[in-house]
């Protein structure tokens, strides 16, 4: 489950384990290769071990077992200040007693860089985040979005080998967060720096990343580019965590090559066999709401079931429809607000259908 193989890993986690109390493993046997210039996001619910991984990479937490390599060099015993890794913190951690320019100059000063070089780099970094006129201000005099940009600029100004970002947009409001997502993405594209980004917000991960590592329970559940993650989740957790999904549970009754048949209480479903046991094993089938057709033409869908409309929510571009299908009362269908779409009302009985390849038969989570 490592996505595509990385030939020349820039950052490498090799069998890394982490425990805080000697009883519970927060990170269980992590193996992860990150390519040079990549934007990799660690995505997962809180407590999934993603921030711990970042802290181990930054050097603030020691790995209990295993080795982390940066540019082929093992860094377990390298102090944080010698790792040359820039970091953007959740609450920015800008130094309040220094001006913006002094904040940016700090990493250059501690490296004893030439004064003129310092000035030109600070200026360049401020211009990069479009805060050229704000060098003399204190962080407290800036808005949240501006502070965020200063934090990004400070993490980049000394040309670090790697930039880590720990939920950097968590404190911003929705609109600003989306704007900053694009800005960070563009900065990454322009500079070609390697970024490891931690978030629990999936839309943030999908927008910015080259690859996403979905964490749960101290294990990477899937490592894949955003589109693959959305369209081809490999297990029930990823299918549930990324985007919206309808789940149907059943028992595998037959496997025919790439597809399989699963028995449910309302009949057999033909689905793509992705991650199932043998015949007789339970399975969770996952189906995106936008891949369901209401009243499909005869013979077009291998899966066709009765549905009872329970609730309609009008969302402008589409109508979210909650139905009862195959014993699932929370079966969601998105009906696009296109010309000639079906008009439903609660209480209607309709037929819904979908293709076998849109319905992925996955494992049954414990």
């Amino acid at each position, binding site marked *: 489950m490592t996505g595509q193989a990385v030939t020349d890993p820039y950052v490498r986690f090799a069998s890394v384990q982490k425990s805080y109390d000697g009883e519970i493993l927060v990170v269980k046997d992590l193996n992860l290769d990150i390519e040079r210039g990549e934007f990799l996001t660690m995505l997962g619910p809180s407590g999934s071990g993603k921030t711990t991984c970042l802290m181990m990479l*930054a*050097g*603030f937490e020691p790995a209990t077992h295993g080795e982390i390599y940066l540019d082929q060099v093992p860094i377990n015993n390298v*102090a*944080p*200040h*010698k*790792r*040359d*890794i*820039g*970091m953007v*913190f*959740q*609450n920015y*951690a*800008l*130094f*309040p*007693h220094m001006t913006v320019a002094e904040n940016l100059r*700090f*990493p250059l000063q*501690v*490296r004893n860089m030439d004064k003129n070089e310092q000035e030109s780099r600070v200026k360049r970094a401020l211009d990069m985040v479009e805060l050229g006129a704000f060098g003399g201000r204190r962080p407290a005099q800036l808005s949240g979005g501006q502070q965020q940009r200063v934090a990004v600029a*400070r*993490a980049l100004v*000394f040309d670090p080998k790697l930039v*880590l970002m720990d939920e950097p947009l968590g404190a911003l409001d929705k609109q600003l967060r989306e704007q900053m997502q694009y800005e960070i993405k563009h900065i990454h594209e322009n500079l070609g720096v390697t970024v490891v980004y931690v978030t629990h917000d999936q839309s943030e991960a999908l927008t910015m990343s080259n690859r996403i590592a979905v964490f749960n329970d101290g294990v990477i559940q899937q490592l894949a580019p955003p589109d693959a993650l959305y369209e081809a989740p490999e297990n029930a957790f990823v299918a549930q965590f990324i985007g919206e999904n309808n789940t149907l549970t059943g028992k595998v009754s037959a496997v025919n090559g790439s597809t399989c048949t699963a028995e449910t209480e309302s009949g057999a479903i033909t689905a793509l066999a992705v991650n199932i046991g043998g015949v007789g094993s339970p399975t969770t089938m996952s189906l995106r709401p936008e891949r369901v057709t209401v009243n499909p033409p005869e013979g077009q869908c291998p899966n066709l079931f009765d549905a009872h409309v329970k609730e309609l929510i009008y969302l402008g571009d589409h109508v979210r429809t909650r139905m009862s299908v195959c014993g699932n009362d929370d079966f969601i269908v998105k009906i696009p607000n296109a010309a000639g779409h079906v008009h439903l009302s609660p209480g209607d009985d309709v037929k819904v259908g979908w293709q076998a390849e849109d319905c992925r038969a996955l494992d049954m989570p414990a």
Partner: protein
Amino acid sequence: MAQAEITGDTMRTADGVPLKLALERALFRSRLRAVMLVLPLFAFLLVTFVLPIFDMLFRSVEDQIVADILPRTVVAIEAWDETSGDLPGEPVFEAIVKDMAEGRKNKTLGRVARRLNYEVSGAASLFRKSGRKAPKITQGPYREKLLKIDKRWKNLDLWNLIKREKGDFTASFFLAAADMQYQPDGSIGMRPENRQIYVHLFGRTLWLSGLITVLCLLLAYPVSYLLATLPLRSGNLLMILVLLPFWTSLLVRTTSWIALLQTQGVINSFLVGIGLIDDGDRLQLIHNQFGTIVAMTHILLPFMILPLYSVMKTIPPSYMRAARSLGATPFTAFVKVYMPNTVAGVGAGGILVFILAIGYYITPALVGGRTGTLISNFIASFISGSTQNWGLAAALGVMLLAIVLALYFLYDKIVGIDNMKLG
């Protein structure tokens, strides 16, 4: 229409009432309530704190004793030319004899005697002695008869003093507090070297307070850092250990230092016991400056720890991490990032400890001995007892207050009082 409209250049409400007036009315009730809530405390402080202080401050310049008790003398002495070098004339002596007779009858003579004795030693006994015999002198020549009772009436300083202090106000308490006095020619100069006390004492008070503040800071900084960075449970335990002495009586803590430091005390006995010093030359650890410094540093330490702790608690650990990730060594990160963010706590703790130390009384009184007493001990000694001199005590108090305010002003200029954070 419910919104405000503009007529001319004043905003008015819909009814045409000026907006400012309407706002004023609307806020009046809530203001009144706020005032009523603080009124009892304000009245209490006014009666028990502000008025006594002003009364005390007033006493440093007020001096009506001479004019009240020797009314005839102060009128008669107007005619005397103090620069002539001669004794005052017969009318002045007649006046003072009559004043003394009346003062003795009213039992007020002692007060003026004590007042004059502050500046002319021997004046008290002179007045007591002469006062007893004054009622018997009913006719002149008064000067001759009085000089016969006591030669000290020839002392021109005494007559100078009476003439100078005949008014309602005096500067002599302040002069005394600054180790100065009137010279015989009426000008102001320093006292003789061997009678200068207070300037030296102010210097010692400032120096010891500063030293104690610095010692407190050095001791409190690491403890506060530990307190602020420890996990909650162990941090709380340590906090209780810090606060425990805070909750113990000041007197108990001071006397326990006596038990520890005295020549027959724990520390000396221990040192003798392990053979480090001889029984004969036990160390003098208390009733000197050393004792004052040790005991006061210990007693004032919590006042430094608490503001420091409350400031350090608000410094997010991510600051240090950010500094480390930006390439700073732990030491550089601490000095360049952590310490500047504790300035508010250092300032608050420093000024708190310094101001408490500068007026500290009990501890130096108990453990200070001769070399470790502070200005407040002298002020206290002038409030009661044989050396009672409220005027001088008040003048010393005013000067102490002035010094504290000046330092506070200086602190505001240099560090800025807004940066201070007490918790």
